[in-house]
C-alpha cells in the first residue's frame, strides 16, 4: 500500500476525488428560500373558509341614471359631496318644456278671459229672458220673442261649458309640462355621498343602464364587506360564524366582521383583477358582513382577504 | 491438511532417496498431435547429491524434471519425493508441497524485472508467509552468500547474466528447500561464469538432506555431477556412477 504514497498519480487521484466532492457540495448548496417579503394573510381560525371580499357601502350603492336621453345643462354637485334626499344633482336640457309652459300659460289666460265673456253673456241672456217672460205673461211680448230668448240662453250656456272645459284642458297640459320640466332636474333619491360623478355639463346623457353610471351615490358612513366564497366551498359556510378581513397587500390591517346575511342567489363571479373586461370564471356565494370603522382608513371598493370560521368539522370537507 | 513432507521421519532405504519416480508415462496432446514424452521412465536421486539429467533435445528430460518437481501432472507411474508420494495429491496440496520443499532455477533466470534483488530473493519466503522484514534480512544474507553484497536495491536488468543467475540461486535457496530443480542453469552463460554457478550449486547440494537435480546438455558441467542420468526418447538409458561416470565425463570433453 505504502509504495503508492511515493506516486504523483496517487496524489493527483486523491486531489481529483476531493475536488469532485467539493464540487458536489458546492453545487448542492442552493440559496435559502427568502420567504415572503411581507407577511401573508393568515387565518385566525384553525378550520376556515377563505374568501375574497370587496368593501362597499352598507346600503347598496345607487347608480344614478338619466330619466331621458338629453343634454346635461348643469351639474350641481361634485365627487365627495354629501347630499340630502331631494337635492338636485344635475339638470337636463329643459328649454322645450319651459317654452311649452309659457305658451300654455298664455293660452290659459286667453281662454280664462273668454270664459269670463261667456259667463257674462249667459248672465245677460238669462236676465233678458226673465224680463221677456214677464212681458209675455202680460202679453207685451210675443211668444216668438220668448222662444228666441230661451234658445239664445241655451246656446250661451253651452259655449260656457265648452270654454270651461278648454281651461281645464290647458291647465292639465300646463301641469304636465311642469312635471316634465321638473323630471329633467335629477335629484338624490336618498341621503348619501357621491362616490363617482361621471357626467359633465354639455355632455349627452343616454336613458339607459350604463356600466359606468352617471353618478354613484352611496352611504359611506357605514361600510360592509361582500365576501365571495367559491360555490364548491358553499357547504362549509353557515350564518353567524366569526369572520375576519385583512386588507389586500397589508396583512397587519385586520378587521373583525359581523355576519349580516348570505345572499340567497349564487352569482357568476366577477373578476376582481382590475381588468375592465368581465371574465366569468366560476359562480360564487356572496356573504355580507358589516364592520366598525377601524383605526386605519378603509375605502369603498377596496379588496380584502376574508377568513370565515368553518361551520362543520373538517370531516365534512368536499372530498372529490 | 498439510502433507507431512519432512523426510526425517521416513525410515530405511527410502530415507536415502530424495526422489523415487517409477514407470512415468506422460502424454501430450490428442489424436494426430499426440506425443508420448515419457515412456515409462524410472528416475531416482539421493539426498546430498548433485544429480545431472542429460540427453539430446526432446528426449523428455525437462518433462521428467517437471513431473518430479510437482509442476506437471503425469499419466502413469508413481512419484515419491522425500518419502512423500505425489500420486493422487490434489493440485493445491502439490502447490503447497512445492512452495515449502522445492527451489527453482531457470535457464532464463526469470527474475521479476520491476523488483529489486532483495525483493526478488524474498519471494519464496513471502509465499511461505514469512513477514517482510524477516524475509528481506534473510534475502540479504543469501545475496551476500552468492557474492553480490551491496547490490541489494539494484534491478535484475542492471546485472550481468551470471550475476542474475546467482540471484536466481539465492532465490532458489532462500527458503531452504530440500529439493533444488535447475533447468539448464549455465546454458545462457560463458564457461567462466558457468563454473562459478556450478560451484555454488555444488555447495548447495552438500547441505544435509538436500538434493540438487540439474537438467542440462552443457558438457562443461558434467564434471560437477555426483551421478548422471542419461535419457533418450522418453526413457532413462543409464544412470552413471563412479568409474563409468568418470569415463563419460572424459569422453565428452
Amino acid at each position: 500500500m505504502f509504495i503508492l504514497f511515493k506516486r504523483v498519480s496517487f496524489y493527483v487521484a486523491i486531489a481529483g476525488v476531493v475536488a469532485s466532492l467539493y464540487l458536489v457540495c458546492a453545487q448542492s448548496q442552493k440559496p435559502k428560500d427568502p420567504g415572503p417579503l411581507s407577511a401573508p394573510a393568515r387565518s385566525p381560525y384553525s378550520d376556515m373558509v377563505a374568501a375574497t371580499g370587496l368593501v362597499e357601502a352598507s346600503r347598496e350603492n345607487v347608480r344614478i341614471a338619466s330619466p331621458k336621453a338629453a343634454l346635461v345643462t348643469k351639474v350641481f354637485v361634485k365627487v365627495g359631496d354629501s347630499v340630502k334626499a331631494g337635492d338636485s344633482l344635475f339638470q337636463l336640457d329643459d328649454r322645450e318644456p319651459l317654452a311649452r309652459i309659457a305658451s300654455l300659460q298664455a293660452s290659459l289666460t286667453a281662454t280664462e278671459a273668454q270664459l269670463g265673456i261667456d259667463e257674462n253673456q249667459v248672465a245677460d241672456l238669462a236676465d233678458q229672458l226673465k224680463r221677456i217672460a214677464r212681458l209675455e205673461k202680460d202679453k207685451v211680448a210675443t211668444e216668438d220673442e220668448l222662444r228666441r230668448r230661451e234658445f239664445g240662453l241655451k246656446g250661451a250656456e253651452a259655449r260656457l261649458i265648452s270654454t270651461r272645459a278648454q281651461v281645464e284642458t290647458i291647465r292639465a297640459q300646463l301641469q304636465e309640462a311642469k312635471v316634465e320640466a321638473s323630471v329633467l332636474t335629477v335629484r338624490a333619491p336618498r341621503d348619501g355621498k357621491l362616490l363617482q360623478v361621471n357626467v359633465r355639463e354639455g355632455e349627452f346623457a343616454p336613458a339607459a343602464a350604463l356600466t359606468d353610471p352617471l353618478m354613484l351615490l352611496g352611504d359611506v358612513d357605514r361600510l360592509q364587506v361582500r365576501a365571495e366564497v367559491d360555490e364548491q366551498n358553499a357547504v362549509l359556510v353557515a350564518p353567524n360564524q366569526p369572520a375576519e378581513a385583512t386588507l389586500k397587500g397589508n396583512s397587519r390591517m385586520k378587521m373583525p366582521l359581523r355576519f349580516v346575511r348570505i345572499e340567497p342567489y349564487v352569482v357568476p363571479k366577477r373578476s376582481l383583477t382590475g381588468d375592465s373586461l368581465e371574465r366569468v370564471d366560476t359562480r360564487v356565494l356572496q356573504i355580507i358582513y358589516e364592520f366598525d370603522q377601524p383605526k386605519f382608513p378603509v375605502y369603498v371598493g377596496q379588496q380584502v382577504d376574508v377568513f370565515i370560521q368553518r361551520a362543520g368539522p373538517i370531516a365534512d370537507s368536499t372530498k372529490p | 491438511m498439510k502433507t507431512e513432507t519432512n523426510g526425517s521421519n521416513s525410515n530405511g532405504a527410502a530415507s536415502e532417496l530424495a526422489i523415487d519416480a517409477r514407470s512415468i508415462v506422460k502424454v501430450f496432446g490428442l489424436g494426430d498431435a499426440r506425443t508420448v514424452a515419457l515412456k515409462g521412465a524410472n528416475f531416482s536421486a539421493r539426498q546430498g547429491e548433485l544429480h545431472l539429467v542429460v540427453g539430446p533435445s526432446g528426449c523428455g528430460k525437462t518433462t521428467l524434471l517437471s513431473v518430479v518437481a510437482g509442476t506437471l501432472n503425469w499419466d502413469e507411474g508413481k512419484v515419491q519425493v522425500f518419502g512423500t508420494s505425489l500420486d493422487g495429491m490434489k493440485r493445491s496440496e502439490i502447490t503447497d508441497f512445492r512452495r515449502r520443499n522445492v527451489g527453482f532455477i531457470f535457464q532464463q533466470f526469470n527474475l521479476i524485472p520491476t523488483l529489486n534483488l532483495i525483493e526478488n530473493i524474498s519471494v519464496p519466503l513471502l509465499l511461505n508467509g514469512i513477514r517482510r522484514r524477516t524475509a528481506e534480512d534473510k534475502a540479504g544474507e543469501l545475496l551476500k552468500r552468492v557474492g553480490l553484497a551491496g547490490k541489494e536495491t539494484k534491478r535484475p536488468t542492471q546485472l550481468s547474466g551470471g550475476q542474475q543467475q546467482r540471484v536466481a540461486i539465492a532465490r532458489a535457496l532462500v527458503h531452504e528447500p530440500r529439493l533444488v530443480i535447475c533447468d539448464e542453469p549455465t546454458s545462457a552463460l560463458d564457461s567462466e561464469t558457468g563454473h562459478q554457478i556450478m560451484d555454488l550449486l555444488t555447495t548447495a547440494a552438500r547441505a544435509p538432506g538436500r538434493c540438487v537435480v540439474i537438467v542440462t546438455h552443457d558438457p562443461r558441467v558434467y564434471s560437477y555431477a555426483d551421478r548422471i542420468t542419461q535419457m533418450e526418447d522418453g526413457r532413462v538409458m543409464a544412470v552413471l556412477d563412479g568409474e563409468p561416470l568418470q569415463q563419460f565425463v572424459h569422453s565428452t570433453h
Partner: protein
Amino acid sequence: MLRLALKMLLGDRAKYIMLVGGLTFSALLMTQQRAVFTGLVSWTTSHMRNMRASIWVVEHRVEQVNETKALRDTDVNRVRSVSTVDYAVPLFQGVLKARAADGSDKQIQLIGLHAGTLKGRPTVMVEGGEEGLERLRIANNVVVDVLASKRLAAGLGRPLQIGDTFEINDREARVVGICKTEPHFFGYPYVFSSYDQALQYAPRQRKMLSMILAEPKEGHSAEEVAQQISNETGLRAYTVPEFEKATVDWVWKNTGIPVSFLTTIILGFVVGVAVAGQTFYSFVLENLKHLGALKAMGASNGLISAMLFVQAMTVGLIGYGMGVGLTAVFGFIVRPIGQPPFVISIETLVGTLFSILVICTLAALFGILKVARLEPAVVFRG
C-alpha cells in the same frame, strides 16, 4: 506479496500510464456526460429553485412544472381554506413576447408574483435589492434576470439597467431590479412582475391563474399538507421533491435526451472495458513468464488472483480519481459561465466508481482466467 504485486504494476511505467490513462478517459467520459445530463435535466426543474415554495398546487392533470393548465381565481381561496395550509398565493407563469430596444422580439418567461407577499420572489438580487422587489407592486414595474438584461438589451450596446424600459406585449415594462436565476431548459430569460401586472401583460384568457404556491402550517409536513390539498380541492398539490421527480420522469418518458446521453455513458463504459481490459490483459501476458515462475514456486491461484485484482483495482481507483478530477476541473471552468449545464451529484460519482470497479473486475478476471489455466511447468520451456 500484494505489495510486490503493486511494485510489479508501478514498475512498468508505460503499461501503468496506459492503464490509468484509459480508465481516466473512461471515468471522465462517464462522469462528465452524466453531469451534463444531470445539469440539463435539472434545468427542467429550475422554476422550483427560482421561485421558492414548499408546495406547488396545479391543475390535476398537470404532470410537470413547465406545463400550465390554468386554474380558476377562486382556487386560491379553496387552497387557503385547507386547514393545514399556512398561506397560499397565486402565481402566473407564461411565455410571452418582449420587444427589445432594437425592435426585435424575444421570448421571455413571465412570472407574476402575488403582490402582497411577493412569495416566490427571486432569491438573489444583483441590483435593486429588496426595494426593487417592493417596487414590483407599482404598475408596469418588472425585475429581470441577468440573462434578460443582456438579451433584451439588443441594440442598446449595454445590458439593461434599473430604469430602462422595454415592451411586453406592447405594454411598457420598467426595470426596477436585476436578479440571478438558474437558467431554464427552454432558454427563456425570466421576467418577474406582480401577479396583477402579469395579467395585464398576458393575452386575455378565460382563466389566467397558472399555479398556487402554498406553505404548510407549523407542525405539518409538506407531504401531508400537499396530500390534504389534493384530497380536499381536487387540484394536484406537489411538494418540491415530488414535483421535481414528476418533471424528471416526464423528461425521461417524453424526450430522447436521456437515451442520447445514456448512449454516451454506455460508450464510456465500453471504451473503459475495451481499453482497460485490453491493456491489462496484455500486461498479464507480458508478465506471464513471471507469473508462471511464481506458480512454480508455489503461489496458489488464489494468491495470483488477489495480486491481479489488487493491480486492477489500483489502476482503477487511480484512473477514477483522475477522471473525476478532470471532470471537476471542467466543472470549475463552466460553472461561472453557466453553459453547458453541469451538475455533478454524489450519485454520479458513486455510479462512475461502480462502473470503473466493474471494468477493473472484468479486466482482472480476463487475466485471472489466463493465469489459472497456466501450467506452472511452462517456465521450463523457455
